[in-house]
């Protein structure tokens, strides 16, 4: 059986004026169903590019990206939109909730585009919000919530469509460390329930909460293995320099 996410020599080049910038340089890895993987790197390492490609917001310039066995590079815009809707749940650093819609309506949005009936939508959105502990705030607007609560709404929105992959882009970036930890715990428990979680972050501390870590640097994979804590990482780096 093939992996859920499979990058085969994925390259992504951008035209910046006269220069061609290489954002992803022959990136190869695969993620199995049920994994909790962190993609780590500094800014400019190519992790955002990888996240965009995994999230089907972008397609590789060269190489292949297979999502559940389908070659994403061959799909048109509508098919990409369908895949995003059905297979991916996004969690953003800035939450990206729609400010004019209440929590229930926000969580309903992916289901609306999936063509789920209004009644079914309301029911599922309510359940999703209850599962992240916001069942009592269904009619509130996002602006009436704290950052941590808003992020939980966006997690509920990511979950509601029962996606194959939950893609979290710096989900704790805008939160204080306590609420950040809570959000990570929530992601971890989702993983324990069987969800595949891909976490994109620049923070080693946060990445170490995942089970597996893929480190990117200058658009290349420099480490792919067990998630290491920052201390272990320093040690590992030192060893690699010695050898």
């Amino acid at each position, binding site marked *: 059986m093939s992996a859920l996410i499979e990058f085969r020599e994925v390259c992504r080049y951008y035209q910046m004026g006269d220069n061609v910038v290489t954002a992803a340089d022959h990136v190869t890895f695969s993620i199995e169903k049920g994994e909790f993987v962190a993609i780590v790197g500094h800014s400019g390492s190519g992790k955002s590019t990888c996240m*965009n490609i995994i*999230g089907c*917001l*972008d397609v590789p310039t060269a190489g292949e990206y297979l999502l559940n066995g389908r070659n994403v590079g061959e799909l048109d*815009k*509508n098919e990409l*939109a*369908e895949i*995003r*809707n*059905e297979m991916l749940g*996004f969690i*953003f650093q800035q939450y*990206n*909730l*729609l400010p*004019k819609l209440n929590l229930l309506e926000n969580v309903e*949005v*992916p289901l*609306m*585009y*999936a*063509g789920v009936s209004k009644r079914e939508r309301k029911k599922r959105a309510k359940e999703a919000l209850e599962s992240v502990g916001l069942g009592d705030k269904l009619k509130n607007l996002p602006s009436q919530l704290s950052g941590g609560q808003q992020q939980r709404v966006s997690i509920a*929105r990511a979950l509601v*469509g029962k996606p194959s992959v939950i893609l979290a882009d710096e989900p704790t970036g805008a939160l204080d460390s306590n609420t950040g930890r809570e959000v990570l715990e929530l992601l971890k428990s989702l993983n324990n329930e069987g969800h595949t979680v891909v976490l994109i972050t620049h923070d080693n501390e946060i990445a170490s909460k995942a089970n597996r870590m893929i480190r990117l640097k200058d658009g290349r994979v420099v480490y792919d293995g067990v998630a290491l804590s920052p201390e272990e990482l320093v040690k590992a780096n030192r060893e690699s320099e010695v050898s």
Partner: protein
Amino acid sequence: MGIGESFSLAIKNILSSKMRSFLTMLGIIIGVSAVIAIAGMGNGMKTFVKDTFSNIGTNMLQVYIFDDGTGTKSVSIDQIYDIVEKHKDELAGVSPYVGINGVVKYGTESSETTTVGGVSEDYFTIEVLELSEGRKLQYMDMKNRQQVCLIGAYLAKEWFNGSPIGEEISIAGYPFTVVGVIKQTGDSEPRARTNDDRVIIPYSTAAAINGSRQVSQFFLTSQPEVSTERARVSLENELLDILGDKDWFYVSSMAEMLKEMDSMISVVSTVLTIIAAISLLVGGIGIMNIMLVSVTERTREIGIRKALGAKERYIMQQFVIEAGVTSGLGGVIGILFGFLLSAGATALIKSLLQTQMTIVPALESVMMAFGISVFIGVLFGYLPAKKAARLNPIDALHFD
């Protein structure tokens, strides 16, 4: 995502910024209400003209004989009567008409506005003139050039307190005895060429006052079952036989005049409506402008929606419907405003011009104005919607 969903979303968005939505609609509101009021005014004018003509009778024909000064070109009253006799299946009645340019006086008072005309006893079969008291003019009045007259309700009221029979007035210096009063048809104000402010005398007397035995104007009516146009052709042919040239006379028919006025009013009101419709176009451009701004403002929202699986079609649908709903709503407000405007204009015309012209917005112009405003909204919403739909989700998500 269904159309209904897009509608409720659109209404939500419109209501969330009421002031802006209203300003966006303003162009459409003004355009639609102007179109409705102007088209209604055209309608009102047509009705008004038709009503006015129906007093006179659309089967009336007027003959004008042009005098070359030598008196050689003329049609005698007998000749006209012969024509009517000859074509009695087409022509019903005839009366000479002799206008007098003289001031009407009673004692020291005089009326400048009063129209004085000399007619025969048959005139009363041509124009519907009812008397409130006294008698009509008779054959003997013609024959003997009697100095008798009928007066309008205005003079009767103003000079004689409503009982003028037997009183004497002076017309162009000649004394005339009042034998009848024409029933009031208007508001009894001193205004030329109205039934309330006129004096009718025997045509023979009028011709004598003018010092000419020739009559240059005749009023005729066609038989009701015959088309006025056919009667007119027969009349023209006969006159051509007598006078030898078409340049010496002119026959005008009320039906034709009504038709001409009708088409003239149509042209004028169409032109005005088109001008008003231009403001609809401008309103549409206003909508496009605001929608473009709105797309930019909502770039992030569009990015989020796309990331969550919205296809281009859905984004497009959302924006087009929003534009359509905005302009449609503007259209509805414009229609209401147009009706108010029409009512206001009717009242204004009534008080300023003392006429009974009612501005009636026609159903078809209301429907058309609404249809056009929705169409314009959708048309001008298309471009911004396309722009929104084509946004790259990655760029849109990182837009601040």
